[in-house]
């Protein structure tokens, strides 16, 4: 083999043996990556229609008076209507470690039973350890009907007016 390795760095000839080694290595690597890809997609989550993860049509705009917080357990969210009429769908999962956060009607805030994080009506953190406001879902209003898409929770650093949807 020593005669194959020429001292010159500039020499770019590759011996047949080295080329085949490289080719086998690359093919093996490719096969591994492909197998990994197959495994990953095989196990990737599937969402069923009409259940959590799908789109919910929750009712007419007028069903929700301003200043109300309405829970939808099947969709894992609260439909919030702010005083100014704006709609907001809040994922009820605590941003700390995932407990289900109940709305406390008396204190007018969300209080997590697990580690006592508290959130305002718009999801803003009132009390740590939660690191960020409650996530929200996309709300759309079509022909006066409110729809919530639970497909992908939207994370935010702080709540803003852009989160609200108006009829």
């Amino acid at each position, binding site marked *: 083999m020593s005669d194959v390795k020429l001292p010159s760095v500039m020499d770019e000839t590759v011996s047949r043996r080295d080329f085949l080694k490289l080719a086998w290595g690359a093919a093996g690597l490719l096969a591994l990556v492909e197998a990994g890809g197959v495994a*990953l997609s095989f*196990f*990737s*989550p*599937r*969402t069923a229609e009409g259940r*959590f*993860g799908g789109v919910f049509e929750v009712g007419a705009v007028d069903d929700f008076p301003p200043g109300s917080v309405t829970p939808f*357990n099947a969709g*894992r969210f609260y439909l919030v209507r702010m005083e100014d009429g704006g709609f907001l769908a809040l994922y009820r*999962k605590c941003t*700390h*470690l*995932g*407990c*289900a956060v*109940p709305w406390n009607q008396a204190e007018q805030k969300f209080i*997590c*039973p*697990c*580690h*006592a994080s508290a959130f305002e009506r718009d999801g803003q953190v009132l009390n*740590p*350890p939660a*690191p960020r406001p409650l996530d929200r879902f996309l709300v759309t209003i079509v022909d006066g009907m409110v729809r919530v898409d639970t497909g992908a*929770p939207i994370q935010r650093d702080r709540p803003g007016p852009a989160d609200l949807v108006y009829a």
Partner: protein
Amino acid sequence: MAENPDPRPEHLPQRIWESIQRDELPPPDDRGRMRLVMNNLVLHLHPSKVARPTLKFTYTWGLGGLALLLVMILAVTGVLLMFEYTPTPQTAYLDMLKLQTEVWYGQLIRNLHHWSGNLLVITVFLHLLRVFFTGGFRTPREFNWVLGLGLLLLVVAANFTGYLLPWDQLAYWAVTVGSSLLSYVPLIGEPLRNFLLGGPEVGAATLTNFYGLHVAIIPLALMGIVSFHIWRVRKDTLSIPRRLDGKIDDGGTGSTQVEKVTTLPHLVSRELVFALVMTGLILMWSVWVNAPLEAAANPDHSPNPAKAAWYFMGLQELLLHFHPVFGAIIIPTLALGALAILPYQRFDLSAEGVWFRSLKGRQMALVGAVTGLIATPALVLLDEYALDLPGLMPSLPTLISNGWIPLAALLLLLIVYYEIIKRVFKATACESRQSVFVLLVTAFVVLTVIGIAFRGEGMALMWPWEVLG
């Protein structure tokens, strides 16, 4: 044509028996005993001869063997449970009730599986401590220590995935909280969590995934690595117990020469007795104490407090004091990384087999334990009632004020502690390192106890009788 005489015995039953068992039973002499150990599928996990001093119970405390026994009990009871259990949200909890009320010995089998699984976590942890304190991880056993760490992780993973299967409130929320820790890993955390749970929340897909992991993937990996681990113990031989004066601990005056005895009967008989006694104790415990089962899982209602599984309580307690990235990711990774490179450090080979390395080593270990016992509760109380780092530094993100800063402070304290042990008490690097290890292990155990017994509603600190009440 000359006939070839058949050398096998004349009678058919004898021919059949000899095709199965090749060696003479009982073995006539030591050579026969050694050959039997070599040729028998189960026995050949052993070497044919072992050093007599390693037979001493208070050297290994039988912990590796107990771990193996528990793995076997878990395999048998686990397979039995599979026949009575279907992993869907509709059936899982009902199957638990059925096990308790309808299935003959269902409750007993579930108890055996439950308690063996929990005891395995404790056993493997104690085994790790035993190996550490007798220096059993030194050359040539470095890699076997690393394999052991892999086993520790697998045992915890097996417990965690099994925790979900009863589908009661305990299971549902412990797994919710536990898997949420993952989502704090930067970048890949969230996709990884979704992949593992089969969606953003614990649900039907999670149960399927965890079941597959719990009954197939983890046990296969565990059996593979356990075989490798024990084969390495056989190849490397066990470290020899020695006394403070460096002589071999043979129970007598101490010698410099290792006496070897045949594995059969010296080691095998001890193993059998120990396995029988432990099986008996586990059986009795499982007859008397039932595995817990709470109300059926209700995704709409988190219990208060929602606690993790008990072996994660130390982690959970860290999480109450640190930003989650630190409590759940950085600190555990640092600890595991330190454990993994530990055997590759330079150390004094002459201390192998001596409990706590030396007399100074024993004293410094005690200093470490006492320091950990006092400092940990003190720091927890300080952080809970007096110190509000994010409040003191409102302009900084909590990742820094409640992460980098306290971690740096703690590491600084550890370095100061190490230097004090080394300079003031004149300990060697090896003894000082051990003292730091004892300090950290004590801290971890204290945190675990605080999490289990001193955290009640809303995760507030309270007395154990209030937690239970």
